[in-house]
Structures are given as structure tokens and as C-alpha cells.
């Protein structure tokens, strides 16, 4: 009986340790630099330097000029398209929910692959957005050199 209990508790502990590892990968500042959390943290810094002046701190954009990054297919849809916009900029009239946006977006081709992956992962998981990360491998695959 005692032995059985001990075995049970050992299993529970093992399960918990495993769960802990899984959960911790989602925790901020976990020290695991390849996790989505770490990518988001780094991406925030890229965003503040590169995107914030036009798209604003809360991702709202500017009415009539700069499109919002909140819950739009541009951000949450095809990652290949999203990577392309960052790489090449965008100079078309954008319409989102019946509102139009006219200012051109400059190409951000100076960003490194890692910075692109980080900032897109940040944008896809900020301002109320929730979507899977953009990986460096995806940027490398779809970014036109």
C-alpha cells in the first residue's frame, strides 16, 4: 500500500515536472530564447523602433492614413503575404471594415530575418491578436532576397 502510494506520487511528480516544462515555455523571461514568448519580447523592441511611429503603440494605426494591426487578415492571415509586406512595403489603398487607408508603407528590408520573425510574432500576439508565431525559418523561406 505504501509502495503503491509512493509510486503514484512519483508518477504525479513526474507528470507535474513535465507540465511545468511545457507551461514554462510560455512564461515570459523563461530564458529559452527560441520560445514564442521570447520572440514576442524581442519583437516589441523592434516594433517600438520601426513600426510604432505610424501604427501607434496600441496598433490602432492612424485614421485615413495608416491601417490598424488589430484583428485584420493582413496580420492574422497568410504569413507569406505578411512577410512580403514587411519586406517590400505597401503602396495600395487599403480597406479594412469599410475604412480606407492611404499612406504608403516603406519597405523594411533592412530588418534581419530574426527581427522580422520577432516583430511579426509580436504583432500577431498583441493588440488583442492571437496567432501562431512567425519563425525565422518561415522568413528565410519566403523572404525574397
Amino acid at each position: 500500500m505504501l509502495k503503491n502510494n509512493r509510486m503514484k506520487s512519483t508518477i504525479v511528480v513526474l507528470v507535474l515536472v513535465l507540465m511545468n516544462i511545457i507551461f514554462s515555455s510560455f512564461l515570459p523571461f523563461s530564458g529559452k530564447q527560441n520560445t514564442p514568448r521570447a520572440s514576442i519580447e524581442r519583437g516589441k523592441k523592434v516594433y517600438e523602433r520601426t513600426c510604432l511611429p505610424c501604427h501607434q503603440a496600441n496598433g490602432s494605426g492612424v485614421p485615413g492614413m495608416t491601417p490598424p494591426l488589430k484583428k485584420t487578415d493582413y496580420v492574422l492571415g497568410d504569413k507569406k503575404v505578411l512577410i512580403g509586406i514587411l519586406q517590400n512595403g505597401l503602396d495600395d489603398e487599403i480597406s479594412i471594415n469599410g475604412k480606407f487607408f492611404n499612406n504608403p508603407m516603406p519597405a523594411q528590408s533592412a530588418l534581419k530575418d530574426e527581427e522580422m520573425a520577432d516583430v511579426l510574432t509580436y504583432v500577431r500576439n498583441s493588440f488583442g491578436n492571437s496567432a501562431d508565431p512567425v519563425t525565422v525559418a518561415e522568413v528565410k523561406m519566403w523572404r525574397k532576397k
Partner: protein
Amino acid sequence: MKSIALTISCFIILMAGRLDLKASDTIVIKKSAPAPLVITVPAGFSATTILDSLGTNRHIAVSSNGDIYVKVERPVNGKGIMVLRESGGKATIVNSFGTFAGSGIAIKNGYVYATTDDDVYRFKMNDKNEVAPNQEPEKIITGLVNKRQHAAKTIALDDAGNIYVNIGAPSNSCQIKDRENGSRGQDPCPILEQAGGIWKFKADKLNQTYKDGSRYATGIRNGVAVFWNKEQNSLYVMQHGRDGLFQMFPSLYNAEEGAELPAEEMLKVKEGANFGWPYCYYDEFQNKKILAPEYGGDKKKQGRCSIVDTPVVAFPGHWAPNAILFYTGDQFPAKYKNGAFVAFHGSWNRAPQNQKGYKVVFVPFANGKPSGNYEVFADGFAGSDALESPDDAVARPSGLAMAADGSLYISDDVKGKIWKISYAKK
């Protein structure tokens, strides 16, 4: 048992932490129900919302019978010009016409002039000073530069049969690649041939193109606010200054300098004037035109900018002046006579600093020149003193017109409000 209890408590703590994290991840800061917008005005004045939500109200004009003509940027029920009649502090829509989008409107010599981003039209008014519902427009000017950025055409008419059209530059600073870090400024800037200035055309000639008009003044990045001042027999324009000094040149400008520079400029525009865009911007602290960093500027050097024309008044950066009106009525106190009201749409390029400038200011004038500093006339449009994003602004001033009784109308393009500002004699 002990160890089971321990692991269970560990599990609870772990889960609690996890749940807590999840909760904090998804917290949405709920905005409290919006309080009614209060527009503050000087003592003795009152501000009345005569219309709450019309559309994307841009420039407005008042006809001789007192009707308010609103150019909505995006048509409302297919109509681009809405006519309002005000009675007892409320305005109602009495007419609408013109199927096109656009920003500019003016009334002159029995015609309503209105713009798209490419063309200028006019509608003849009938003997009741109204535009008949089936009245076809005449196309006055066509084929103007429209590349979406700074594309809104705005207009003013003089008393000599001329119409002045603001043709904004489709660019920030005429870089080879617009707004791209490190891209060089083009020299000479080819944009200036057909934009970045004010063009003069005949007010009554049909189908004019660039070859029929003349470049009245150049080096104006985007002069959305245009006004013909009869007293001075002169055109006035407010320039939207360039963006991105901090973002593109962080080694020269810090975030605060990027938010305050360059000045938004009030320009008295004489024929042949050159205000220096894209090579120059106005620094309101050094009180002079400075060479832009894309053209070798270092924040202090003037270079070629020592000889360009300068503003008559400089305002803080990025406030986005969208309308100017010189007051000629008799209702307001004497100091307002012949002075200038300026409607600022409010900033976006001050981030990461708070956004500013969602207000209407007044500049007193005497003998054709500013006679004092600008003062805030109407404020509170943004609905917040610490506005982070322009998208959070409750209202944004975009047009000005003087009412038949000498009150001042202010239009807004967020929801489409119109205010009437009146003075009650004590």
C-alpha cells in the same frame, strides 16, 4: 500521503500561476462609457453641437442664405455634398448632391465649387441660392496629381476670377524611396513640377489642366488649409510640416525634438513664393528655416534655406492644420476682427509622446500682420488630455466657416459633428 499533499499543493500553485498568467494575458481594459464631449471656449462664448453624426466632414462653406455646405470625404448615401440648415441650435439636412468623394468646398459668385482628389467641379446655384437636385456639375480642373498620400485637393477663390488649388506632395521629404530609412532626398525634387505647391486656375473655365494654370507658389508640402483674405488681398495657407525627424534620424533628433519639430507654418502666400519643401523645414525654436537632413542638414545648418520664404506664424509640430478662416463678422469681440482661426486636425507623428493639437486656435491680426501669440480658442475635441493614438480621439476639427450671424462653425471628420461657437454680449 505527505508527498501527495505536497505535489497537489505544488500542482495548485503551478496551475494558479498558470491561470493567473493566462488571465493577465487576456485582460481587456474596458473603456468607461464615453462622457459627453465638452468643448471648452473662452469666457462669454458658447459651443453648441448642432449636428452629432453626419459623416467624414471635411471643409465647410456657408451660402448667402445661411445654409451650411459640408464636403464629406466619403459620400453619404451616395452624396458627397450635404446641405444643412440650422434652426434653434440644431441643423437638419435639407439637400445633398454631387456623387464624388473629396475634401474641398467653396462658394463664390453663385456657384458651389467642390473637389475630388483629381478634379475640381462647380455646381450652379439657382435664384433661391440653392443647388437643384438634378443640377449637373461643370468640370473646371482635371488631371491633378493623385497618388493617395496628401491627395486631398482644397480650394480658395479670390475676387478677380481665380481659383487656388492646394496640390499636396505625395511624399514626406522627396526621398527616392518615400519614408524609407537612409533613402536619399532627390535634388532637384521632381515632385515640385506638379505638386508640393499652390496652383492658380480660372474659376469659370472648363476642363483646365496643368498647362492652363500656373504654379502660384511652391515648396509647400501639403497646404490643406487655404483661405483668400479679402482685407489683405492675399492668399493664406497652413502647411503640414514633414514627418519622421526622430524616426529616420535618431542620431540627430531625440524623441521630443521629433515630436516638436518641424513647425506647422502659417504662410502668407505671394505669387512666386517658395517655402522650401522638401529641402527645408522651419524650426520654431531657432526661428529659421533649416536644411533637411535628407539634403545634408545637421539640425542647425541653413545652407540654401537662408533665402526661402518664411512663415508668418509657427505652431508646434505635427498638429495638422486642416482649415484657416479670417474672421470678418461683427458678433465676436473686437479683437477677433480680421484675426485668423486655425482648425488643427491633431497629430499622429508625435508618438511615442502623447498626441496633441486637436483644437482650434486664434491668432490676432492688426494691419495685416499677427499682433500677438496664438491662443487656444476651442479645445477638448480629442476627449482626453493624454491621447496616445489619434484613433482614440472622439473628434478632430477639420473645417471652419462663418455663420450668417457671425458665429463660427467647426466640422469634425470622426463621426461628423458640427459645432456652432457664438458669443453672448454681456
